[in-house]
Each structure stands twice: as structure tokens, then as C-alpha cells.
């Protein structure tokens, strides 16, 4: 029965009818998860008139699985482009406004869950009541302490199962001291445990943080190397010599191939590469066979070893592959992916072998995963240098991938879309980008977009490409669709969008973009604000638009002011002051424009010449000689060379009194004096 999450009780009536003939046929209008006992027989009702009834054909009942109805209903709805991702509370106050915030909100949620799980697991006796029907095992407390006491193999097995490294090693030693032999299987599983964790205790906090930690490290490195997609995480050698694993390995009376294999894999995982290769030769000497996972590890070991030339490494890998074939071990997807991953280090030398590997993979019949294509893209487009002439392999790849649906097969599957979009952005090819995006939206492929920062990277690149290459209407539609429900734009993305608007001459959208930028937390990015102001102030526009721009400028000014208030050394960029003043003038806010002039002196920034001209025009329009003189005073205060020209204009255009003329001449003489004193060239140039 479908459990709809609602507080309502919904009763569904079902009509079940029976025929007169005594057969059980149920006409069910809902999921037939119930069936009635076939043993209750309906007696023949005597005298039933069977002849003369026409044939009633009851169609066969359809069956479906438990979630089929829900999936069918889900297919009728699409993504809501105004809503934040469903994990957040849908309230204007609680929706995150930047990617930092969204990450911290999700972490907060997860940490709450972890804290609850931790409490439940630490005090299991308080959480025994179970009201859930049917029983939900994952909500019950888990037991992390070993229950079996005493020294026995069963106790050892239990500790291995609970992943207690130290305790199981101690138990093993105790068993050996007591003289009991430990079976090969148990020793192997102990070796597995030790090699997997590298002889260190798994993170004591809890079992759900382990993977997060390694993911964090990986992401930190990824972010630092965002532009250059260099391979690999250098863990550093964490395999201590003569640690417990090696000791126990030496103590084991009989070793089978599983023991060797697990040791080799552990060594490679913890970067004890030389020992791994040595152990492999020992394995061969004992005439044992390695399995495919061990071969994968060995290939990785060969590629990571430091001191050899590329051709030697490649030859060694080829030898390993030959041995694999000789031992009749079939390669799997991981084998080829490992080879391709290692080839990345070989730079351009690795291109031909990569293609050979790929063809081999296809020939054997192994379906490549997204990670395969990711490595190939990395190899061929490693350095972003389109002038060198990039290969066209991305087009072949996209053609091959069209319409395919993938399932997760390799941990690196989620890096494909990021690298593909990066290549599209480098090649400046919008069609290709649409193809990649189409692939992302096929079936379940959206799951491969990866964690937050990768998704942001992908969409930032995609959107920047759209701004660059696509028509403005389509770009604006994408803007509304993607932002902010899919990703939060960086200020650079917004600047790209503004430039696209500029090219398409759609500057009236700018106030809206500014409003959105404030929402996404870019209200304090100087570069963005200057770009906006510059675009608005550059040309003259029709009056309503001018008013809208003036409002926007006032808004930006208030952000500067609030920024001011919080800093001891206020700092307004000169350009911003210029633009804001111009916009106020043109938008009809004369008073505020004059206030801006005052700010110039306060912040000690020089007003531009065109600005002063415009102020003069506005003073003339309002026929206010006092203001005109103000301007000249300001110009002279900054010792601007244009001061004289302004003074002359004042005298020509305005009706001023004699003292004012005197004052003006003084001012101009001051300036010209100081000019001639300091630099005669400028005075002459004027």
C-alpha cells in the first residue's frame, strides 16, 4: 500500500465481485498486493441459470512493483525553477543565499542526524521501543561493542566484523599464545581488515564520518587545483615497515593466494609500492595466481613508482598485462580505468596507448564507464591551449555517448561532466555544450553531476558559455531557469552576463540583475558593482530607464555606505563615485548628485572631466550660478587643469555679479599659478 506522506486519512473503497460459476477472479482497481485464500470454495448455487448468460470476459490482472504507481505520478511533475533544492526548508528566511551557506546548512542538517545517531548508539537501552510496522532495522540502535568474551576464534571473527583493528590483533596474538591455530579463512579476513585500514584504527568518532573525511581532503585538493586537472591524491606513504599486517603475514603457517593478494592491495593502497612489487614476485615464485583486483593494484603501483622513465613504465605495465593473460585472469573495467588513470601522468606520450587501451576494452566487450571517458578527455585536453590545435576527440566521444544511460561503476564517474564542460568552454562550442547537457539530463545521469563544487563549476562554465555565444533571450531564459535553484552564480558569472547584455543592447535588465546579485551575496563585490555602474552610466537612455538606473545607483550607493560604516578606513573607488553622480544627474535626482560632489572631497577622489561638464550643464539648466561656482571651486581644489575652461564657461553662460567674477579669477589664477609652478606643460597644453 502506498504510504502518502500526509496528515490525512484517505479511505479507498474497493469493489470485488464474484461470478456465479464458482471461480475466483478478482476485479481489483488497485495494487493487487493482496490475494485471497484459494481454499475457501464457493458452493455451487443450485439452479443457477448458466445458459443464456452471455460471455463475460474478465481481463487478466496487471501486476507492478511497489513504487510503480509513485513513479508514474512523479513523471507528471517537473523541476520547479523558482524553488530551492528540496533539502532546505522552503521559507524565505531559511533558504540559503550562497553556496557557502547552502553547504553549511546541509552540513548542519547532517551533523544533527549524526549527533542523534551517536546518542542512540551510545545509550541503546533507552531506545528499545519499536512502534514501526513493519520493522525498520536501520532506526534501531546498533551495537558496536563486541559481545563475545573470552579467547576464541568466534570472538576474533566478531571483532573483525566490528572493524576493531587493535582488538582483533590482540585477540589473534592471544590465540597464538594459547596455542590454538587460527583457520586460514579467519587469518585472511584479519589480513583484509589490516590491509584495508593500513593497520590504523578506523576513525573512532563514528562510521559515517570516515568517508567524509577522505572526501574532504580530496575536495580541498581539487579546489586548489581547479584550473589544472592534475591527477591523483598524494597520500604519502602511510604503510609502516614491519607493521602488524606484515608480522601476521609472516606468522601464518600457510598462505594462499588470497593472503598474498590482500597484502599486495593493502601495500599499494598505502603507497608501499616497492614492497608490493616484491611481494608479487614472491607470489609468482610460490606458483600462485593473483586475481584481477591485485593486478589492478600492481598496475597502479607500477605507474606511481617514482624513478623510472615513461617508456619503461609503460613496458612494465604491458608485461603485467601479459602475465595476467597468461594466468588466465580476465581484466575488468577497473583494469582499464586504472591504466588510463596512470596514463594521464604520461602527458602527450600517453595519447596513443590510451586509444589502444580503449579499443582493447571495446574489443573484449567491457562497457566503458563515464570515468573512462573522463580520463581520455583529461589526457587529450590537459593543457588549456587551444592555439596549439586541440584534438577533435571530444566530438567522437559525445557522438558515442548520445542517449546512453549510465549506472555507477567507478568512483571517478562523477568527474566526467565537469571535464567535458571545461573542454566545451575552452573550445567555445555551444552545440557541444548542449550535447553534454542533454546527456546529463538523460535518464538517471543527473546523479553523476558530483558534489557541490563540481556542480557549481559545471554550471558556471555552461552559463558563461551561454552568455558568450547564445542569443540574449535564450540566455535570459536559462538564467531564470538555473539561478538560483540549481547553482549560485559567482560574481564573474554575473559579470559575463552583464557583458552579454551589453553586447545585445538589453541594458534595461541591469537593475534586475543587481537585485539578484544582492540576494546571492555579491552586494559587496567591487568589480561587479563597478561593472554595473559603468554599463549604466556609459550612454544616455530614455527617461524612464534613466530613473530606474538612478534607483539602482542609489541602492549601490547605500551598499557602499554600509560598507563604509563597518570599516575604519572608508574607501570608495573613484569610478564608482563618478558613475553614481552621473546617474543621479541624468535620472533627475539633482540634490543627491550635489551631495555626491561633496563626497568627492571627503574621500579625496578626483572627479572626471565629463562629470564636471555635466554638472555645469545641469547648473545651467537650473540657472543657478552659485552651483556653477561651486563646481569651479571644486575643480580648483583638486588642481584640475580643466578648471580654467570651466571658469570661462561660467563667465560666459551665467549672469554673475562682479565679486563672483573676481573670485573666479582668483581661483583660476591660483590654479594656473600652481600649474605653471608645478608643471608648465600641462598649463600650456590647456
Amino acid at each position, binding site marked *: 500500500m502506498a504510504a502518502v506522506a500526509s496528515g490525512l486519512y484517505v479511505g479507498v473503497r474497493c469493489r470485488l465481485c464474484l461470478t456465479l460459476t464458482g471461480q475466483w477472479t478478482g476485479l481489483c482497481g488497485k495494487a493487487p498486493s493482496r490475494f*485471497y485464500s484459494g481454499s475457501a470454495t464457493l458452493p455451487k448455487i443450485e439452479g443457477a441459470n448458466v445458459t443464456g448468460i452471455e460471455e463475460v470476459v474478465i481481463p487478466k490482472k496487471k501486476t507492478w512493483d511497489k513504487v510503480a504507481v509513485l513513479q508514474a505520478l512523479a513523471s507528471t511533475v517537473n523541476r520547479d525553477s523558482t524553488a530551492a533544492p528540496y533539502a532546505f526548508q522552503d521559507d524565505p528566511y531559511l533558504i540559503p543565499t550562497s553556496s557557502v551557506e547552502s553547504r553549511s546548512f546541509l552540513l548542519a542538517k547532517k551533523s544533527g542526524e549524526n549527533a542523534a545517531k551517536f546518542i542512540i548508539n551510545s545509550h541503546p537501552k533507552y531506545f528499545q521501543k519499536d512502534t514501526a510496522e513493519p520493522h525498520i532495522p536501520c532506526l534501531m540502535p546498533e551495537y558496536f561493542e563486541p559481545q563475545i568474551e573470552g579467547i576464541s576464534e568466534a570472538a576474533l571473527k566478531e571483532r573483525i566484523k566490528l572493524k576493531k583493528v587493535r582488538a582483533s590483533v590482540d585477540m589473534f596474538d592471544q590465540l597464538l599464545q594459547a596455542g590454538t591455530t587460527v583457520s586460514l579463512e579467519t587469518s585472511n579476513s584479519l589480513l583484509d581488515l589490516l590491509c584495508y585500514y593500513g593497520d590504523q584504527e578506523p576513525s573512532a568518532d563514528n562510521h559515517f564520518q570516515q568517508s567524509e573525511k577522505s572526501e574532504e581532503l580530496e575536495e580541498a585538493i581539487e579546489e586548489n587545483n581547479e584550473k589544472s586537472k592534475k591527477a591523483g591524491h598524494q597520500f604519502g606513504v602511510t604503510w609502516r615497515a614491519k607493521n602488524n599486517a606484515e608480522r601476521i603475514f609472516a606468522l601464518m603457517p600457510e598462505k594462499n593466494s588470497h593472503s598474498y593478494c590482500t597484502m599486495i592491495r593493502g601495500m599499494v593502497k598505502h603507497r608501499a609500492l616497492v614492497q608490493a612489487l616484491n611481494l608479487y614476485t614472491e607470489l609468482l615464485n610460490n606458483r600462485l595466481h593473483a586475481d584481477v583486483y591485485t593486478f589492478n593494484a600492481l598496475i597502479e603501483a607500477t605507474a606511481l613508482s617514482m624513478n623510472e622513465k615513461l617508456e619503461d613504465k609503460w613496458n612494465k605495465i604491458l608485461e603485467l598485462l601479459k602475465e595476467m593473460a597468461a594466468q588466465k585472469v580476465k581484466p575488468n573495467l577497473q583494469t582499464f580505468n586504472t591504466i588510463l588513470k596512470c596514463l594521464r601522468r604520461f602527458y602527450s606520450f600517453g595519447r596513443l596507448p590510451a586509444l589502444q587501451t580503449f579499443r582493447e576494452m571495446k574489443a573484449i566487450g567491457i562497457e566503458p564507464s563515464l570515468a573512462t571517458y573522463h580520463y581520455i578527455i583529461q589526457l587529450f585536453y590537459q593543457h588549456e591551449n587551444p592555439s596549439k590545435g586541440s584534438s577533435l576527440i571530444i566530438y567522437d566521444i559525445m557522438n558515442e555517448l548520445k542517449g546512453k544511460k549510465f549506472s555507477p561503476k567507478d568512483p571517478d564517474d562523477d568527474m566526467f561532466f565537469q571535464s567535458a564542460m571545461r573542454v566545451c568552454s575552452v573550445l567555445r562550442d555551444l552545440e557541444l555544450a548542449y550535447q553534454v547537457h542533454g546527456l546529463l539530463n538523460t535518464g538517471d545521469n543527473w546523479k553523476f553531476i558530483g558534489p557541490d563544487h563540481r556542480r557549481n563549476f559545471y554550471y558556471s562554465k555552461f552559463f558563461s558559455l551561454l552568455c558568450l555565444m547564445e542569443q540574449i533571450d535564450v540566455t535570459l531564459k536559462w538564467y531564470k531557469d538555473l539561478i538560483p535553484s540549481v547553482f549560485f552564480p559567482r560574481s564573474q558569472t554575473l559579470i559575463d552576463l552583464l557583458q552579454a547584455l551589453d553586447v545585445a543592447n538589453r541594458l534595461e535588465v541591469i537593475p534586475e540583475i543587481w537585485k539578484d546579485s544582492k540576494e546571492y551575496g555579491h552586494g559587496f563585490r567591487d568589480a561587479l558593482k563597478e561593472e554595473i555602474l559603468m554599463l549604466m552610466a556609459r550612454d544616455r537612455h530614455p527617461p524612464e530607464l534613466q530613473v530606474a538606473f538612478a534607483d539602482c545607483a542609489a541602492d549601490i550607493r547605500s551598499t557602499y555606505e554600509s560598507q563604509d560604516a563597518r570599516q575604519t578606513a572608508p574607501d570608495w573607488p573613484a569610478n564608482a563615485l563618478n558613475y553614481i553622480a552621473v546617474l543621479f544627474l541624468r535620472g533627475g535626482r539633482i540634490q543627491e548628485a550635489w551631495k555626491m560632489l561633496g563626497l568627492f572631497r571627503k574621500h579625496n577622489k578626483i572627479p572626471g572631466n565629463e562629470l564636471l561638464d555635466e554638472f555645469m550643464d545641469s547648473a545651467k539648466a537650473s540657472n543657478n550660478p552659485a552651483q556653477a561656482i561651486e563646481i569651479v571651486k571644486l575643480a580648483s581644489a583638486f588642481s584640475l587643469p580643466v578648471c580654467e575652461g570651466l571658469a570661462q564657461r561660467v563667465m560666459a553662460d551665467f549672469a554673475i555679479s562682479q565679486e563672483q567674477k573676481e573670485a573666479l579669477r582668483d581661483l583660476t589664477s591660483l590654479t594656473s599659478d600652481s600649474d605653471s609652478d608645478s608643471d608648465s606643460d600641462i598649463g600650456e597644453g590647456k
Partner: protein
Amino acid sequence: MAAATLPAWLALQPAARTLRAFCTAVSPATRSAIPSPRTAGRTSRYERPLRRKALPPRTEKMTVDLDWPSVYPVAAPFKPSAVPLPVRMGYPVKRGVPMAKEGNLELLKIPNFLHLTPVAIKKHCEALKDFCTEWPAALDSDEKCEKHFPIEIDTADYVSAGPSIRNPKARVVTLRVKLSSLNLDDHAKKKLIKLVGERYCKTTDVLTIRTDRCPLKRQNYDYAIYLLTVLYHESWKTEEWEKEKTEADMEEYIWKNSPSEKNILETLLQIKAAEKNLEVNKEELLGTKEVEDYKKCVVSLKNEGDNEETLSQYKESVKKLLKLM
């Protein structure tokens, strides 16, 4: 830029995975990544970090032709920021208007059907058509359904949000059948009706059996069918002691051997005796038309009760019988 350094900082302190990291990351409590959030403490005027401002509601971004079932795909509480309608609800203060939708608890309390607009229902039905089979072509009228499938079973399923999916009310099974579709003769029908008692409705001729004594629906269904079977068979049998059925047990009035018959016979005999007409034959007397008529009226009066029609018919028949007209 602060935005870029913050995640790296978070990453490099893996131990701070818990509340500590999240606290310090959000502690400026401002929406934007201000370049120098820590200088908030230095200036004397603005020591308190700025309060987080709420975003404008989503309704401002909604266009007129948006896909509403995508905004409310499932039953969800009323979200004033997501519903672009200017609804008001609540008892107004004097000379006021009902409260607006923001923060309105009344709108939250009531169930809403924003997820089931006609457009959404149409889409759902389209999607669910794949799960349905066709209606049999031969059953194109109610009578035919009655004829082929006389027994009707009613069950109810209950769905709710909660830890348990079981609901004890779901075990009830109701079986309805018209007695006319069962093969019963007069005696069997009367016996069946006596056996079931209240479960039979005379006006609609429907026998309703409602079972809930077993814990599972399946078991209750089997029990109901079993009951029907047993009733049917039992009503066809005739027991020894049924012969002792008295008049008080009779469901309807029968003229034969009734006191009314005897009375009228006596009366008629007395009339005949008064007329010095001694050769009378009881059967002949009873066979006359007036007596037949009288019998019919009495039967209808007794069976159907007193109403204008029956009483007037009785009056007429008595008059005729006693030759009073």
C-alpha cells in the same frame, strides 16, 4: 576571496566536522561573504553583526504560465511564499479585514488541495491509465452487473503518515447481496430472514453482512462468504420443530384458519340461521365473492397497516358482505 577560502578552511580542519565548523562558518550571521567580517568588532558603532534578512518571496519570480503541479507536487502545508494568491483568512478585528496570508496559522491548520488542481488530476489520470485494464464489454449496464455479479464486497483501506502502516479499521468487510438473486423458495426466504434478523432490509431486499471479528481482512472476507453459504443451506433445511410455528411467529397474516375467518363464518352462519336458511355449506359460504373480497381486504389491512385506502376498502367489503348497502 573570502568565499573561496572558507570551504578550504573547512576542509583542512577535518576534526571540525561537527557543530564547531558550522558555527564559525555562519557566525557573522550575514547573508553575504563580506570581505572583512571580523572587523565588525572593531568599530564602535556597529558591533552587532547584521541581522540576516529574508529573501523576497518566491511568488515574485513566478510567471503566469508556470507549471503549478511542479510547485505543489504532493500534499504539503500552505506556504505563503510559494502560493501567489492574495488569500485572507481569519476573523477580523473591529473595522478591519481578515489577516493576510503571511504567518497565518488558520491557513496552515486547514487541509489544502493545492496539489490536486484539475490540471494535476488530469495529468495523474493520464499517467495511471497504464495500470488499468479494460472494463469487460459485456457488462454495459447496471442490471447486467447485478445479474452476473450479485454479491458486492466493500472494504476500506487507510493511509496515514506515521511509523506504522497498520490500521485496525481496515479489517472490516461488508458483503451485500439481494435475496432475489439467491435461489430461495418461500419457506427458505422466510427462514433466512428470521435467521439474519436486522441485517435484512425489507425495502431494498438487501442482505448485509458486516464482519470484523477476525484480525485480517482476508479472514473476514472468508468468514462472510462462509456465513452466506451456511445461511443458504440452513434456510433450505426444514427442522422438526418448525412445525410448531405459532401464529405469533408468522411474518404475515394468513387468512386460512385465522380467527377472522372463524368470526366471519360464525357471523354468516348466524345471519343464515336468522333467515331460517339451515342448509348451509361452510365452503360454499366461504367461497362467495363477498367473502373473498372481505378476505382480501382483511389481509391487506393486517399486512399493510392502517391507511385510508385499506380502511375504506374494508368498509366497502363489510357493507357488501352484510348487505347493508
